[in-house]
């Protein structure tokens, strides 16, 4: 479904991504793990068009994304939960969710998806008319996820959804990601929390300073000696 080939991204003189290739198949949870500065967020931004790659191709169901206007990508079925959540703090929870459906025109579909999101995240329903900036970190993460789901994507990119959350909330967030996947949405997950990410992922890639150094199923990588040493604390 999503295929990245020989992707390179440059910031000035620095090559942040040095030619990586990976793919995400329909219905999978695929995770990219790696340390700070490995290039995970840059890869996400290249896919959603926020940064321009210097070489390589990114295709979604065969369509080249690097040639599409970034704002049109959502409408092609790819939504993103950005790093640091980036909810619209000055707008209410409900307005944020409605903005998630900005590219859609089917009023009834939007209303029923809003009800679905409120069912998945009951806390958002309680706080629907509160400003998003007043939510806790965990609630903002849920809002960012709900907002991405409002686009009714076939694939959703999640960038560090567990960042800065308490262990209890991290578990909740990972359960929700599995649920979203079971309901039929493909997930590309970028995480520093390698242990949790590998436990729910079908397949995984290890990103190190702009290169993919390892790949395999989630279970395989969780057992791999090098991964254990570098990312799972021995």
């Amino acid at each position, binding site marked *: 479904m999503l295929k990245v080939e020989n992707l390179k991204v440059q910031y000035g003189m620095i090559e942040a991504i040095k030619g990586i290739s990976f793919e995400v198949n329909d219905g999978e949870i695929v995770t990219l793990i790696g340390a700070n500065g490995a290039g995970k967020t840059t890869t996400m931004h290249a896919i959603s068009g926020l940064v321009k790659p210097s070489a390589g191709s990114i295709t979604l169901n065969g369509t080249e994304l690097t040639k599409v206007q970034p704002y049109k990508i959502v409408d092609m079925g790819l939504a993103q939960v950005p790093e640091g959540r*980036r909810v619209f*703090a000055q707008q209410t929870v409900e307005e944020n969710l409605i903005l998630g459906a900005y590219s859609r025109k089917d009023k009834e579909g939007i209303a029923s998806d809003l009800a679905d999101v409120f069912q998945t995240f009951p806390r958002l329903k309680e706080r629907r008319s509160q400003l998003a900036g007043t939510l806790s970190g965990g609630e903002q993460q849920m809002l960012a996820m709900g907002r991405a789901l409002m*686009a009714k994507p076939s694939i959703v990119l999640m960038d560090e959804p567990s960042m800065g959350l308490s262990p209890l909330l991290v578990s909740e967030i990972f359960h929700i990601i599995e649920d979203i996947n079971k309901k039929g949405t493909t997930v590309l997950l970028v995480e520093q929390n390698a242990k949790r990410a590998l436990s729910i992922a079908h397949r995984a890639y290890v990103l190190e300073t702009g290169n993919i150094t390892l790949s395999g199923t989630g279970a395989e990588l969780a057992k791999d000696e090098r991964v254990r040493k570098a990312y799972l604390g021995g």
Partner: protein
Amino acid sequence: MEFISYLVNGLGLGSVYAIIALGYTMVYGIAKMLNFAHGDVIMIGAYISFFALMNFGLPIIPATLLAIICCTILGVVIEKLAYKPLRQASSLAVLITAIGVSYFLQNGAQLLWTSATKVYPSAMPSGSLTLGGFSISWLTLITIGVCLLIMAVLTTFINKTKTGRAMRACSEDKGAAILMGINVNFIISVTFAIGSGLAAIASVLLCSTYPSVFPTLGAMPGIKAFTAAVFGGIGSIPGAFLGGLLLGIIEILAKAYISTQLSDAIVFAVLIVVLLIKPTGLLGRKLSEKV
């Protein structure tokens, strides 16, 4: 009694400032730039409505509509040609470009219509409304009414419509707005269109009060309205209204009670004091720089 009539006149002048200040504040809120050519869009609006009234003999409302249409197109074209190529450039480059556009419009107007002052026809209802001993001119009433109407329509538009929500989203975080599927360039165009259309309305109200039309007529009201926008908190729509109205009142009261010559100095001094006490302006929000 005298005080109340000064106050009403101040509100009238302040309404014009508020309408112009909206253009500054909306563009700043969304495109994060100071459009110093905004005052000159007022001047173009003044010339267009002048010709519509004098040469084509149009009534005031169609003349205003014509000015709105022309200024809206002008605003969008300026943004596309002058500012859009600089989206990634430093804010200083954009600022200097805006000043360049301002000179271009002023000198263009001088070339086309000479620098001779033209007398704006009085097309607004004359006379005044007398209520219990003191009177307000119809023009002042119309000006205040138009300002209130604009405020109501704009607030509803920004808060209740899809495009309004998208505008607020762009003003907070353009990257996240793109992820929602919002066409940021389109939203910026809409913002320039609205600001410039409002400048055209302001030009008709302004020239009906001070009936002379010349190529640099937009400069002073432009800088005053910019002051009003900063005074109220740049980026904030209610702030632009509040700042505009207060500035008008301060200016008229200063003229009436202190000194006509010093009134502008007093207006700017008040701005300095407000910014010293509250650097973000009256209704401005504190912006934290992202690291």
